[in-house]
């Protein structure tokens, strides 16, 4: 590592665990000969650590592993460039015309339908300031530590903490045993949006509540083009915060907004996905569509 520390407890662990890791690698290498060498050199061990569900990949929508983040930043940067001429310089609600132009551009770039309204229902805006949220309780008895699939995950996302209350739709599952992979992904990649400010909400609370529950949205960092498909799982933030939506620690990470003030300007549009085909998680523009 390039950084230095004077913390003796850290140094002790770092040295001990680095040595152990090398020793385990050496064991693989020597004990299993040809196969072990293949494992050690190819980094196959790293396959154990994958944090994105590769099995859910669509041909046109590629989820990214952590190591691909920087690359993704480059490929989606072209989108940010294209958006530059369309987006206003100040953070304000887009006009209907602007929304139309941008949703058409995003649909063409990502290869799925991106829109500001579905069945006549939409949020009050689609361009605004996102802030970092905490993790949500997924089932009774859940805790922060259980949110991590592996230690690296925890180190990356655990510091955000867990919200004291439940999300707007309560628990994601009734128990730990009932928690499905889909539930886990919904919490990992969740958004809090201002459903209560959606035009027509007050007159149709039940309908809107059901409409927005786990509704998929595309969120894009307007400066870098980094994009995430996320599910609405909470209502907020309050108007007085000055923020317009909130993102889970994972969403903020993949938008490139997890550091510093943990906020930034984003575009956020609904995804029309009636057959539930678009996977949640960071999303990259397919190369052949990027040329459009």
């Amino acid at each position, binding site marked *: 590592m390039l950084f230095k520390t004077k913390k003796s407890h*850290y140094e002790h*662990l770092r040295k001990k*665990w680095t040595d152990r890791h090398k020793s385990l*690698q050496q064991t693989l290498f020597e004990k299993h000969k040809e196969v*072990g060498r293949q*494992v050690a050199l190819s980094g196959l061990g790293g396959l*154990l650590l994958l944090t994105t569900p590769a099995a859910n990949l669509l041909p046109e929508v590629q989820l990214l592993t952590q190591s691909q983040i920087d690359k993704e930043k480059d490929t989606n940067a072209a989108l940010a460039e294209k958006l530059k001429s369309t987006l206003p310089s100040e953070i304000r609600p887009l006009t209907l015309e602007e929304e139309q132009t941008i949703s058409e551009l995003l649909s063409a770039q990502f290869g799925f339908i991106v829109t500001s309204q579905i069945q006549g229902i939409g949020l009050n805006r689609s361009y605004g300031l996102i802030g970092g949220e905490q993790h949500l309780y997924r089932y009774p008895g859940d805790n922060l*530590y259980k949110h991590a699939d*592996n*230690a690296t995950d925890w180190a990356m996302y655990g510091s955000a903490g867990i919200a004291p209350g439940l999300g707007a739709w309560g628990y994601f599952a009734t128990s730990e045993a009932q928690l499905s992979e889909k539930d886990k992904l919904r919490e990992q990649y969740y958004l809090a949006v201002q459903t209560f400010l959606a035009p027509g909400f007050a007159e149709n609370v039940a309908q809107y509540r059901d409409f927005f529950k786990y509704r998929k949205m595309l969120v894009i960092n307007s400066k870098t083009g980094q994009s995430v498909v996320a599910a609405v799982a909470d209502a907020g933030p309050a108007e007085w915060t000055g923020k317009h939506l909130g993102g889970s620690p994972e969403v903020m990470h993949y938008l490139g907004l997890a550091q510093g003030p943990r906020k930034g300007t984003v575009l956020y549009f609904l995804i029309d996905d009636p057959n539930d085909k678009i996977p949640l998680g960071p999303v990259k523009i397919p190369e052949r569509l990027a040329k459009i």
Partner: protein
Amino acid sequence: MKYFYMKYVNIEFLVEELHEMDLSERERHHLATLIDLSMSNAILDEILSNLSEIDKKAFIHLLQEDPESEYLMKFLNEKVENIEEKIKKAADDLAKQMHEDIKQSRRIK
């Protein structure tokens, strides 16, 4: 293979311990990565140690093809008796050693 990790590795207590330590974000991340890498290697070693040379190659081929395939576990269950318990034990043993390391590091002034 994330499946192996999620199903057989209990790192909750390690994570809790690290959480309570005075560590910067980078330090915590570095130690967490070492936990994951060591776990991965320990599990792979346990798996490979229980397979014949031919089956090792077949397993590695399957792993490279699709690390998320449910067939991986089916393959292992067909080849090795009680493989799930063996994987779990290998992971638990390593986790206990690492837990001891953490406790030891806390005693260092």
